């Protein structure tokens, strides 16, 4: 299969401008004839739905939560990047582009990333106009802080709840269009299948989570803005409801899945404390602006943090990466933490933790300033652990946080299935093998506010409106498949609750496809997973009925998809015989334990094609061409 990314011609810095001036348009009077389905109401989904509705398209918006305002973008804490250069510290579109490509370890598309850097500045303008209360200086100008992987301060923030404020901005824009009748909002609806009619995406099948009713929705284009698949690891910083069902079902209908093994493990999360644990809580990366990571120099240290003298502490990030120090990118910081714990120098009851110490910052800035910057994070830490981080250092450990992989999309953010667009974390496009901090919010909003409104129009201008036929064969077949699957899940009536499978899958993936991977481990996982899948379908117990609010049924469907996706993650990791960004294959490392990329073999994007149940997926390749930047070894030393 030949993958055409449809990157516009011309010099990199002019591609997007040229694209916009040549894009095909739909006339205002015709826009209302087109219907667009948007699945998910996070930053990407809400911003896309609102922007398309403002243009005049009829939009149907879906979310599984009880309100669009609850999508998990809301939990992003630290901030959003933009190349505004308000700090006069040398930032520019070019530098944000470079940092993002380098941060992603040269596994993303130059054209997409450059566009992201270009529109980043418009995002901040838009959000401020909506009333997002970003942090300000006394003079009334916007404040910035720095984030991992950058040597400039380009991160805009609203205390420790930037995602919440940005999402509320987009939610408000969405709400305005609902009131105007441009958007039909369907909360508590879960997408269970994609309908592909004559090769084009023409609709979806949803389940109403309260009544259990399955419905076909036809449209002229379908946008998936359904987030990442990090819950495959079970323990993660994702919301409990975050799932891959929408993208996985689309994948099974023909959409290619790219780089599934690129999963980000965030370095600063509160460590696991027990068996029953359901979720890991992130402590924003912004804490590394003022917090210093350390472990004892000696193995098996038993003293408490306060009793360990300065000379016996190993500030390992500052030691290993002097130029970026505690602000080394996430993949690097996570692996460093893992390495010192593997050496037996981890702290806390499990030995899986490192200190994040604020005493130096408190001494330098005063407790008041530290409190002003991070009060809600310190309070959160206190709530969960019962410890006061103003007095003793926090304990942190890496946890699954974000997935760079996702459905393959071209420059238009359209998948290989025409009419199916994928936005935000659900696509693979901008972050390569590692995402930099404060870039997820940027990408979600860039896609929804500023990219999709152009590219959807370009697609629709070539389509006759009212294409999807809910009574046609494609819809009927999709509906029957969904009904049968729901019935099958309810019919197993085995002995084990869904959560048990979710945990076991999570552990397999964490052990074999987590922070570091080996050929042997991946092969083992690929061997075990089909068995786990089989056991699931023979022994899962989903109580209750289908015509009712049934949370066990919802979870079961999602876990069933994760069980398939998990295997693909391992396959992709196995095939990528190099280390890059978050994908660390132990066989491919430099003498000092850093990633050894193999650009000659793997300067590419994988794109997996589903071939049917029981058949191995086929791996396609989109080669990456670097015209502007030299492929270089990433160094933060």
């Amino acid at each position, binding site marked *: 299969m030949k993958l055409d990314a449809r990157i516009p011609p011309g010099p990199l810095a002019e591609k997007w401008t040229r694209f916009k001036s040549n894009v095909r348009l739909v006339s205002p009077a015709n826009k209302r004839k087109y219907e667009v389905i948007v699945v998910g109401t996070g930053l990407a989904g809400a911003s896309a739905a609102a922007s398309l509705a*403002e243009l005049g398209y009829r939009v149907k918006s879906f979310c599984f939560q009880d309100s669009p305002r609850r999508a998990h973008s809301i*939990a992003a804490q630290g901030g959003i990047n933009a190349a505004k250069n308000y700090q006069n510290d040398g930032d520019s579109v070019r530098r944000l582009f470079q940092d993002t490509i380098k941060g992603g370890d040269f596994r993303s598309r130059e054209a997409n990333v450059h566009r992201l850097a270009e529109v980043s500045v418009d995002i901040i303008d838009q959000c401020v106009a909506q009333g997002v209360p970003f942090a300000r200086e006394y*003079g009334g100008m916007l404040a910035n802080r720095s984030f991992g992987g950058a040597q400039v301060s380009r991160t805009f923030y609203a205390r420790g709840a930037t995602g919440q404020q940005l999402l509320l901005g987009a939610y408000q*824009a969405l709400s305005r269009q609902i009131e105007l009748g441009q958007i039909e909002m369907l909360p508590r609806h879960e997408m269970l299948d994609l309908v592909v009619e004559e090769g084009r995406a023409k609709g979806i099948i949803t389940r109403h989570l309260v009544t259990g009713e399955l419905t076909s929705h036809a449209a002229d284009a379908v946008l998936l803005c359904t987030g990442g698949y990090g819950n495959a690891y079970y323990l993660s910083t994702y919301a409990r409801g975050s799932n891959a069902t929408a993208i996985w079902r689309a994948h099974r209908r023909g959409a290619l899945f790219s780089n599934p093994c690129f999963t980000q493990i965030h370095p600063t999360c509160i460590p696991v404390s027990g068996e029953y644990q359901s979720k890991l809580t992130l402590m924003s990366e912004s804490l590394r602006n003022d917090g210093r990571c350390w472990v004892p120099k000696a193995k098996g240290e038993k003293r408490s943090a306060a009793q360990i003298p300065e000379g016996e502490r190993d500030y390992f990030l500052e030691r290993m990466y002097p130029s970026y120090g505690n602000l080394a990118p996430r993949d690097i910081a996570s692996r460093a933490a893992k390495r010192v714990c593997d050496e037996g120098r981890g702290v806390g009851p499990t030995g899986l933790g490192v200190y994040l110490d604020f005493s130096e910052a408190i001494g330098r800035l005063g407790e008041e300033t530290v409190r002003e910057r991070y009060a809600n994070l310190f309070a959160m830490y206190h*709530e969960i652990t019962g410890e006061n981080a103003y007095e003793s250092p926090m304990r942190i450990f890496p946890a699954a946080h974000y997935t760079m992989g996702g459905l393959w999309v071209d420059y238009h953010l359209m998948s290989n299935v025409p009419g199916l667009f994928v936005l935000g974390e659900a696509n693979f496009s901008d972050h390569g093998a590692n995402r930099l901090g404060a870039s997820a919010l940027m990408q979600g909003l860039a896609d929804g506010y500023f990219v999709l409104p152009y590219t959807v129009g370009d697609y629709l201008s070539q389509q006759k409106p009212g294409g999807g036929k809910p009574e046609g064969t494609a819809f009927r077949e999709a509906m029957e498949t969904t009904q049968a699957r729901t019935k099958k899940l309810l019919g197993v009536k085995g002995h084990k609750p869904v959560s048990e499978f979710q945990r076991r899958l999570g552990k397999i993936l964490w052990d074999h496809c987590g922070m570091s991977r080996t050929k042997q481990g991946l092969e083992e996982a690929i061997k075990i997973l089909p068995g786990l899948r089989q056991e699931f379908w023979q022994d899962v117990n989903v109580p209750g009925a289908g015509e009712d609010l049934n949370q066990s049924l919802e979870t079961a469907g999602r876990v069933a998809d994760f069980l398939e996706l998990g295997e693909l993650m391992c396959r992709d990791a196995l095939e990528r015989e190099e280390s890059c960004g978050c994908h660390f294959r132990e066989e491919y490392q430099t003498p000092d334990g850093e990633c050894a990329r193999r650009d000659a073999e793997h300067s590419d994007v994988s794109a997996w094609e589903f071939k049917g149940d029981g058949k191995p997926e086929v791996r396609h390749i989109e080669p990456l061409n670097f015209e502007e930047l030299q492929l270089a070894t990433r160094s933060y030393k």
Partner: protein
Amino acid sequence: MKLRLRVWRQKRCDTEGRFETYEADGLTADMSFLEMLDVVNDRLTKEGKEPIAFDHDCREGICGSCAMAINGEPHGPNEAATTCQIYLRSFRDGDTLTVEPWRARAFPVIKDLVTDRTAFDRVIQAGGFVSVSTGQAPDANAMPIGKVEAEKAFDAAHCIGCGACVAACRNGSAMLFVAAKVSHLGLLPQGQPERAQRVQKMVAAMDAEGFGNCSNQYACEAVCPKEISVDWIARMNRDYALAAAKKL
């Protein structure tokens, strides 16, 4: 550690509900309240019974999904915390906990502990926004906003829409929720052009949804996980009267 749970079970919105008692055993103090419910649910599933339905998502206190009253207090006994942020160390071994859904006419029960809070969305739809379409914005620094004003606006904007204010209010009033949004936008220069209209439309929508009225008791503020202040209610009362006066 061990707890006895009396949990409200209700099949659907149109059926009668009742309390069921469950013994939760083998718990630890650093387990979260919702993790305890997960454990109970897994056990119920193994016993072939239907698990307790409850809304939850982010489990870090920001999405506003989780919503249950523990011993008559929305979100449970802790200050500035959502239900998912309650850890069992807040209770004593052997305690009996009564767990109920939000109680308010505007939030009908859907099942067990799950309620329908879409009334909040409709109130926002009535005017809780700035009418600015994508692409119309001027440069972000074109309009300076004092640090103090911006911080105040954030305080109001931090509301997570969980509905605890309504659940705690003896009158099932949504004044704190509505006032927080009215104040967030009303404090910022961007919110000024629609300020008068906004407060009138949102209050009308709030009234139409069947929320009760504020009788200034402030239980809402006491249970609010984000500590939204009732000062915003006073501000909204003022804004509302000014808007009405403007119309005259």
